């Protein structure tokens, strides 16, 4: 098992180096010297410019610059935002919990609906329910979620007035961030009004971000269940008179979940893509909205640092999924 984990890890390292290279190239390819961009339009004293260039190592050969970049990165220095002058990494750390909170809610929403829908669709194959679930999930999969969000705002916030249009919590509440997750922080404060407010702000973004994973999970669960339900051991379980529910929920589901777990793990990238759009629509103060603002303000350190961190996180999650997959499915461990 350890060997399996190490092999996987050794595959991840070159990918990470590749991402650092991509981000580094991004710095070099963008028109204009970063120092000049920092100096702004007011111009800069030539001596000061040369001084800054030397400080940041821009007068060195490109390879040395890449080395400097790597060593700064290893020390947790990803540069400072051109707009706010805050270190990129601390801005990321401040905003990331909001994205996590939204993503976790979205994936839970997708699981709670997608797993049962997929299982029932497989058990009642070719029924109206099955066709309905597959039709809806293909629609969800094809959904432009930035439009889906606007539609939900139009219906629930504007027409019905049930949910707020944007933000994470109503302005009158101030919650001292402890974990950064508002649902938890408000409960720690014992402020139920604030908790309700945070919850009502979460509903629509959760649905929007959860739509694509929901569609994928429902489809995957259905096809995995269909495959498992055709196996001999299921017929044996049925033949020895086990209750139908036990056969489906225990015997079949356990094996069907193996591919589903992988698919859930692979949703991390999808979730980030969705988070960029969802956070933009709902003005959700997370990493996705921060990145889009960064690019609109030409705040390149934010874009570079954010890309690197998100790439690293996706890679770590994929690695964990891979290793978990090896844990729950020994066949994988031994064949590779």
């Amino acid at each position, binding site marked *: 098992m350890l060997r399996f984990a190490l092999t996987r890890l050794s595959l991840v390292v070159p990918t990470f180096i590749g991402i650092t290279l991509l981000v580094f190239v991004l710095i070099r390819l963008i028109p204009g010297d970063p120092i000049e961009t920092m100096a702004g339009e007011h111009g800069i004293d030539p001596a000061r410019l040369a001084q800054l260039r030397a400080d940041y190592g821009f007068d060195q050969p490109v390879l040395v610059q890449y080395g400097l970049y790597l060593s700064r990165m290893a020390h947790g220095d990803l540069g400072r935002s051109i707009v706010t002058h805050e270190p990129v990494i601390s801005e990321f750390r401040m905003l990331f919990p909001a994205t996590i909170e939204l993503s976790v809610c979205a994936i839970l929403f997708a699981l709670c609906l997608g797993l049962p829908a997929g299982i029932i669709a497989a058990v009642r194959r070719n029924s109206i329910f099955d066709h309905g679930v*597959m039709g809806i999930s293909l629609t969800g999969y094809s959904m*432009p979620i*930035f*439009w889906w969000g606007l539609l939900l705002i139009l219906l629930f916030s504007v027409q019905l007035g049930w949910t707020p249009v944007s933000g994470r919590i109503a302005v009158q509440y101030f919650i001292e961030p402890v974990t950064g997750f508002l649902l938890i922080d408000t409960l720690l404060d014992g402020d139920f009004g604030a908790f309700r407010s945070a919850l009502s702000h979460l509903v629509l973004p959760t649905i929007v971000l959860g739509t694509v994973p929901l569609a994928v999970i429902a489809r995957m669960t259905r096809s995995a269940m269909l495959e498992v339900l055709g196996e001999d051991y299921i017929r044996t379980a049925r033949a020895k008179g086990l209750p139908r529910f036990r056969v489906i929920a225990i015997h079949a589901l356990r094996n069907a979940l193996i591919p589903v777990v992988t698919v859930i793990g692979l949703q991390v*990238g999808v979730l980030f893509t969705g988070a*960029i759009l969802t956070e933009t629509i709902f003005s959700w103060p997370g990493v996705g909205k921060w*990145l889009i603002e960064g690019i609109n303000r030409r705040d390149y350190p934010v874009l570079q640092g954010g890309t690197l961190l998100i*790439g690293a996180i996706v890679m770590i999650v994929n690695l964990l999924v891979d290793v978990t997959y090896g844990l729950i499915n020994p066949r994988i461990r031994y064949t590779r």
Partner: protein
Amino acid sequence: MTAGAFENPDVAAGAPQHPLLEFWFDFKANFGAVTGLAVIVVLILLALFADFVAPHSPIVTNNAAFLKPPFWQQGGSIAYPLGTDAIGRDILSRLIHGARLSLLIGIAVVTLSVVAGTILGLVAGFFRGVIEIAIMRLMDITLTLPSLLLAIVIVAILGPGLMNAMLAVAIVLLPHYVRIARAAVISEVSKDYITAAKVAGAGRLRLMFKEILPNCTAPLIVQATLGISTAILDAAALGFLGLGAQPPLPEWGTMLADAREFVLRAWWVVTLPGSAILVTVLAFNLLGDGLRDALDPKLKR
């Protein structure tokens, strides 16, 4: 969705059918796929004849008709069947011209991606070693970064605009085609017919494109069809974020971005472009699923 393919009785009697005929027989039993194909044909016709079908120009503004509702609502007129936007442009005409743009985006992006991806995949499969490792690691990086984030990074390097957005989406889609082509080479290259072709004196290029490539056309076609829907969706998302097609181009995502601030006052400027994206993407996904079911022998009984 796949129901039709399974209910199909095998046509066993008589001479074996022509493969294309057999494919069509499987395909047309799939209601969803045929619907998707029909929608796509309509969209292509609309796109081709946009200049004749659209009642107005997609970019000419009319100062007398700001945010006019569709004709069935009070204040609407049949002159603007689906209403006008905030600066008095006919929504229907913009949607029709948008179909031309979206189909072009989808087809151009996927063509670029399939051609480049297939060549890279064939090369990676043929010349193992350093070249293969370099290509596949590069693809791993492209797959690791969330697709929209990678597209945004590429657009940040190249600058916003429709062309650059299309290039970005083409790069994002690349790994799928590389993997399919490489897998085909690796599974085929040791088979007897390849050895025979080698003995007969076939060169590398001939082996790659004439002998091996036909073995992966089916998955490539399926993946390309599904890729068109991804390309349209991603390009619309970039347009929505202000990084893709720029106004006044009637691209559906860009139209939605313009419409965002009117969500409270004019439902039609928001709902219609999004429905157009959804219907188009859904049609290509239905077609892609249908093609996969009809082309994949493993799914057939």
